[in-house]
C-alpha cells in the first residue's frame, strides 16, 4: 500500500501532499519535513530507496523517490509494494504530468496543484495503483476538465 505521495522542491517547500492514511495536520507537516530531511541528504548517485523514517508505519515503511531538476517525487510505501514497480510508477506519473502541462515545470505544479491532484486521483486510489496507462489517464482527465469547462459560462473558475 502507498501511504503517502509527496512532491516538494529542493528547499523542502511542499508542492503536493497526499496521504492515504489519516494523520493530524501537525503530523502531516512533520512527515513532510522529515522526508525532505532524509531525501535531501542523499547523493545523486545512490539508490532511490530509503528506509528510516519513523513517523509513518514504523519499520515496514520505505521511501522511494526520484529527483527531477528542482523537485523531489517521493512515494512512501509499505512492504507490499514492489520497489522497482513504484519507481516505474513515478516515471509514469511524471510523464503524464509532462503531457498534461506540456513540458511541466515547478511553476505548473505551484499554480495548478488541484489539477495535479485530479491527475493523481486517476492513477492511485485509496493507496493502491488504479491505472498505469498514460493515455488512458490523460483521456479521463481531459474528459473531466471538459465537463468543468462546459459548466463554467459563469464567473466561477477555480484558478
Amino acid at each position, binding site marked *: 500500500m502507498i501511504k503517502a505521495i509527496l512532491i516538494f522542491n529542493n528547499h523542502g517547500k511542499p508542492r503536493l501532499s497526499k496521504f492515504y492514511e489519516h494523520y493530524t495536520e501537525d503530523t502531516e507537516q512533520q512527515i513532510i519535513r522529515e522526508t525532505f530531511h532524509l531525501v535531501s541528504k542523499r547523493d545523486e548517485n545512490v539508490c*532511490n530507496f530509503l528506509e528510516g523514517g519513523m513517523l509513518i508505519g514504523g519499520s515496514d515503511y520505505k521511501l522511494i523517490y526520484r529527483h527531477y531538476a528542482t523537485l523531489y517525487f517521493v512515494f512512501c510505501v509499505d512492504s507490499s509494494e*514492489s520497489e*522497482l514497480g513504484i519507481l*516505474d510508477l513515478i516515471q509514469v506519473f511524471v510523464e503524464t504530468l509532462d503531457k498534461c502541462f506540456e513540458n511541466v515545470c515547478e511553476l505548473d505544479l505551484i499554480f495548478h496543484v488541484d489539477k495535479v491532484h485530479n491527475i493523481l486521483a486517476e492513477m492511485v*486510489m*485509496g493507496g493502491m495503483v488504479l491505472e498505469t496507462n498514460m493515455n488512458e489517464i490523460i483521456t479521463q482527465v481531459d474528459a473531466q476538465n471538459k465537463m468543468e469547462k462546459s459548466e463554467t459560462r459563469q*464567473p*466561477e473558475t*477555480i*484558478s
Partner: protein
Amino acid sequence: MPAPIRLRELIRTIRTARTQAEEREMIQKECAAIRSSFREEDNTYRCRNVAKLLYMHMLGYPAHFGQLECLKLIASQKFTDKRIGYLGAMLLLDERQDVHLLMTNCIKNDLNHSTQYVQGLALCTLGCMGSSEMCRDLAGEVEKLLKTSNSYLRKKAALCAVHVIRKVPELMEMFLPATKNLLSEKNHGVLHTSVVLLTEMCERSPDMLAHFRKLVPQLVRILKNLIMSGYSPEHDVSGISDPFLQVRILRLLRILGKSDDDSSEAMNDILAQVATNTETSKNVGNAILYETVLTIMDIKSESGLRVLAINILGRFLLNNDKNIRYVALTSLLKTVQTDHNAVQRHRSTIVDCLKDLDVSIKRRAMELSFALVNGNNIRGMMKELLYFLDSCDPEFKADCASGVFLAAEKYGTDSLTSLHVTAVLSCVLAGSYVRDDSVPNLIQLITNSVEMHAYTVQRLYKALLDDISQQPLVQVASWCIGEYGDLLVSGQCEEEEPIQDEVLDVLEGLLVSNLSTPVTRGYALTAIMKLSTRFSSVNRIKKVVSIYGSSIDVELQQRAVEYNALFKKYDHMRANPNPNIAVITIHASNSTEAEMTDFVFQAAVPKTFQLQLLSPSSNVVPALNQGTVTQVIRVLNPQKQQLRMRIKLTYTHKGSPVQDLAEVNNFPPQSWQ
C-alpha cells in the same frame, strides 16, 4: 463585497512574501476574507474559496473551518463543485469527525449518478476515506458497480471494494459473486485492479485462497499473452507489454502457489519463460524479473528454477544500477535461510558491497554478510566485518558490533581465539554501541582466552583512560582490571605500564564519577576489592572499601560491608588462602519489568565437594537491572575435581511463584584447579 480572489492570485501573492512572518500574515488575511465569504453562503464563490483553503492547508496552515463547506460543495449539482468538494473532503476530513458521516447520503446519490465521472468521484472518495459505517451502508452500491460493463467504473469499484473489505472484513463474502468473471476483462485497468482485489481477498482468508486457486491457469494464460503478444502500442512501456500488470499477476501467483504443489507446478513453465525471456536493459524489465524471482523463491518450485532465480539475483548484484543491486541484496536476505548454499556462492560479491558508497546498500550487505558467516568462512568474513566496523558510519556501529560479537561467539574456535578476542574488543571499544546484556558474555569470553588476558586488560585500561562514559566498556574493563590487575602492572605488557596507585586512582574515579551507573560502581568496587589480593597497597583498598560501607547506594553498601567483613574475619586466609577452597560470588540481576521477590538461590554439588552458602545481600531482585543480589558461595574441593553444580532459583514474579533449575558445568579451570 468584492469577489474573492482566485487561487492563482493568492498563490502569486504568497510567493512575494519574503519571510515566514509575512507569509503568515497574508494567509491570515485571506482566511478572514474566506470566512466572511463562507458566512454569506454564496454558492458562486464557494468553490474557489475551498480551493484556496486546500492550498493553504498544504503549506501547513489550519483549514478545518472549511470542512462543512466541502460538504456543501459535494451536495451541489455542478461537477466543478463536486470535484473540489470531494478533494477537500479527502484532504481535510477523516472518520474521526462526525461531519464526515453527513457525506454518506451524498456519496450514495452520486454512486448512482447519471454521469460516470461523478460516480467515479464518489467511488474514489469512499475508497480513500470511507469509515466502517459508511462502507457498511454503501457496500451494496459498490458491489453493483463491480458488475457493470463500464470499465472506468469497474476498475474504481474494484479498488473501492478492497477498501471496504479492509474496513469491514465480514463483507468480503458479498463481493465473491462479482469476482467470477473479472479476469475475462479485456481492459487492462480493470484487470489490474481486479488482480489487486483478488490478492487482498486471498491474503485475508484461507478459504478464499483455496477458492481462487482454480484461477491459476487463467492467470498463467493472461501472463503468457502479455509476454508473447508482440508489440502492442496501447500497453507498451519501454518495449514491454504492461509491466505493471505482469508484476501484479506474478504477485498473485506467488500467493496462490505458496504451500501448494499443484498450483506451483502449473506455474513453473511460465515462470521459467519470464525469467529467461524478459528484456533487462530497462528498469521495467528488471521489475518483472525481480518479481519473478520472488515468486520462484516463495512457491514450491523445482530446484532448477530456484537456482536460476538465485543466479539472476547474483547477476543483479553486478548491475551498474544501484537500485537493482539494492533489491538483489534485499531478496537474497530473504532467501538466505532456505537456499543458503546457493547464496554462499555469491558471498564475495556481497562482501564487496560493504564498500559501496550507498548507505542503503551497505546496510543490506552487512545484514546479508552476517547471515552468511559460518564455520568455514569465519576467518575471512571476520576480517572484512571488523574492517567494516572500524570504518562504518555511526548509525551502523551498534548493529555491526552486535553482529560481530554474535558471530565470534557462535563460530569462533580455540584456534581462532586471538581473532575472537580482537573482534570482541573491537565491539567493546565501539563503546555504547554494545548492548548492556552482552557484558557478562564478553567477560566469559575473555575469561576463556587465557593467553590474551594481558593484552586484553592493557587495551581496556588504556580505553578507560580516554573515556569513562560508555558503561558496557567501563564494566568489562573494571572486571578485567580486578581479575588481571596483576598482569597489568607486572611488566607483561609491551607498552608502558601503570603503577598500582594509578590503577586504583582510575577505579576510584569510576566510583565517584557522575557518569557511572550504580551497576558500574558495583563492578568498580568489586574490582578494587579483588586487587587487594593482587596488589600490595592493601591499606588503601581497605580504606576505600570501608568508606563505601556507609554509601547511600544500598548495593554498594552491601558489597562494601561484606568486603569489610572479609578483611576482618578472613584476613588470615589472605596469607595462605586454602587452595582447595573456591570462592564464588553470584550476582543475580533482573531485566524484566517487575521485581522478583522471595528470591532464594540454592546449590548442590557432587559428593566429593562441600558447599557453604553465605547469606545473600537481599531477597528482592529489583526490576530493569536496577540492582543485583549478591551471594558468596565457598566450595571445598580437596580432590581437585572439575567443579559442577546444580542450582535452583525460586522467586515470586508478578504474583506467581517461579522455579528455575539448571546445571552449571563451565566453571573456568582456574577456579578449581
